[in-house]
């Protein structure tokens, strides 16, 4: 990302907050006080800051998942599906296995989640790579299938029979350690950060990363220099799905303690938008994910103060992302040097 991009993102945030502020003002509240409550809610005390961290973890992982798929120029909208299936797999291993020490049980659950999510992502990947079936369409559709599959499993074969649609609780040896109680923050946070570091290193400092990036940048050239772009695309999608699966596994192992029907409510969609506003720059992803996490967890604090529900915060987030996706919305060309060239993402829709 260039300097202009950073400033554009900053201005997008300010513009969205400004418009939100006007609405809050019209509703009869003091916008500055409301935003003050928002940031207090996101940072104050164990509960506030812990909730922000708990929301940050899946946002970071799903944003990375989406980023890695766009690196190989595939648009994986199906991270949500991988997240659900990964969560289900982790829950299954979590309550199914007993008498295993935590050192083995926790990694096993994570691997199960990653495998389930990754394999699921290979379906649209194979259709895209070998038959050119539009992956945006198939992944959107397969998300519904994944959610229905997990909903079926949690209601019938794997039901806890407790009346509510959830699996039995996972055993203690499979749980991630919580901290900053009573918030839901857990050691999954460190797993997510570690995965970010590993992914960054892999993408920019290994040949595998070079192959992936080269495939996305120019498949014809890659093939010429001896890279198999089809294989790289499949690999990228597997990693993408696996990250989504791990995000789901961490939600189960760290936050809920079991698989809950329909628990996600669009986590991966938000992650995808985080990746989109980061304009293909992996280093910005944690920053943006953290910012979105602040807004989301702070919404509760603001709700206590203003009686405005969290839909206003969702609207502000949506406006911010909308502004951030527009290029040159704030006409910075004259102020900060010559015309800039955009090097952002390409969708499958731009043929």
């Amino acid at each position, binding site marked *: 990302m260039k300097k202009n991009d950073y400033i554009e993102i900053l201005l997008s945030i300010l513009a969205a907050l400004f418009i939100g502020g006007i609405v809050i003002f019209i509703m009869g509240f003091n916008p500055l006080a409301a935003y003050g409550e928002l940031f207090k809610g996101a940072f104050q005390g164990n509960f506030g800051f812990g909730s922000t961290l708990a929301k940050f973890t899946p946002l970071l992982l799903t944003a990375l998942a989406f980023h890695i798929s766009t690196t190989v120029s595939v648009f994986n909208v199906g991270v949500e599906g991988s997240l659900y299936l990964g969560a289900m797999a982790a829950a299954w291993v979590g309550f199914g296995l007993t008498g295993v020490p935590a050192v083995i049980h926790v990694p096993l659950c994570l691997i199960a989640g990653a495998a389930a999510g990754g394999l699921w992502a290979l379906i649209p990947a194979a*259709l895209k790579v070998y038959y050119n079936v539009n992956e945006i369409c198939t992944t959107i559709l397969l998300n*519904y299938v994944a959610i229905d599959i997990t909903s079926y499993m949690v209601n019938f074969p794997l039901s806890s029979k407790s009346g509510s649609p959830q699996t039995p609780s996972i055993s203690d040896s499979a749980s991630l350690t919580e901290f900053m109680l009573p918030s839901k923050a857990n050691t999954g946070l460190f797993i997510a950060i570690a995965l970010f570091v590993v992914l960054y290193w892999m993408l920019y400092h290994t040949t595998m990363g070079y192959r992936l990036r080269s495939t996305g940048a120019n498949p014809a050239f890659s093939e010429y220099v001896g890279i198999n772009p089809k294989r790289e695309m499949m690999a990228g999608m597997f990693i993408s799905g696996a990250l989504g699966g791990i995000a789901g596994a961490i939600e189960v192992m760290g936050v809920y303690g079991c698989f809950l029907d329909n628990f996600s409510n669009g986590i991966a969609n938000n992650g995808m938008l985080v990746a989109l506003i980061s304009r293909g720059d992996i280093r910005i992803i944690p920053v943006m994910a953290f910012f979105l996490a602040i807004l989301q967890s702070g919404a509760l604090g603001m709700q206590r103060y203003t009686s405005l529900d969290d*839909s206003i915060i969702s609207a502000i987030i949506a406006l911010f992302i909308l502004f951030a996706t527009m290029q040159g919305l704030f006409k910075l060309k004259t102020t900060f040097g010559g015309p800039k060239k955009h090097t952002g993402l390409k969708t499958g829709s731009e043929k």
Partner: protein
Amino acid sequence: MSGILNYTLFHSMIRNSTSILFAMLACSITQQANILNVGVEGIMLVAAFTAVATSFFTGSWLLAIFAAIVAGVLIALIIAVANIKYKADIFAVGMTVNMLALALTKFANHNILHASGSFTSQDIKPIPDVKVAALSGNAVVDSLFNQYNLMEFIGIILIFVTGYFMYKTVFGLRTRSIGMNQMAALTAGINVVKQKYVVMVISGVLGGLGGAYLSLGYTHMFTENMTNGRGFMGVAAMFFGNMNPVLGWVGCLLFGLLDSVGSQLQAYGIPSQLILMQPYIITVLILSAVLIVRKRKKTKLQSTNAGEA
């Protein structure tokens, strides 16, 4: 099985497919100009809310449809300006607009209609059904041909109107030429920017009608997130029909049929989740099958051409 597959299925298939049909039309027409309009979900949701609110406050379903169209066009224009003027990625804008629509309608539902979750009232004037007294004598005839909602007729008429405009008029030719090769269209003197805006406005009108149908025809209420993926199913139906409205309609009818059969199978104790996922699986299978066959044909053609040469 005879309890499931009977004549009433036809009527409910049409009912269930109509909202998807409007979404399919709205994104078929933009896809012809190479705009993948995933924002149709958001267009429909905002339109659905506007329709209910207008009908509730004015007591007129005609005004409600009009307001829904205006709302649909407004949202479509947001997408159009972001994508065409500010070069925002169409997919990102579409998904963001869906998120914005969800938040805005939820906010308005709380603060204008003072309802949470869903809003329903005696004062909502729905779009009327078309009833022909002469047909209501026989139960079978009545179910097959009578008592359709006005919008269900309009939807079917619009398929052919859209098809005609796309394939038989200069307007359609220009739109399709943008989709085929934007540079060539530009060179041929077509005002690509204007054409894209016009197409997006039409898409907003169609999505607006779909939203109005959803909240004033299909149901008589507004529910938060009531589109619930219907816009995406419209996108899928568009891919199914390869941008052709008539073929896309077949996809919509398939969705509608599975939906109707599914709700009846539920009564037989089959888990609803297993039924609900069928339309999505079938669409993926059909999409794949269409493209696999197309690829086979292409390679066959290439090999025969190579043989002749």
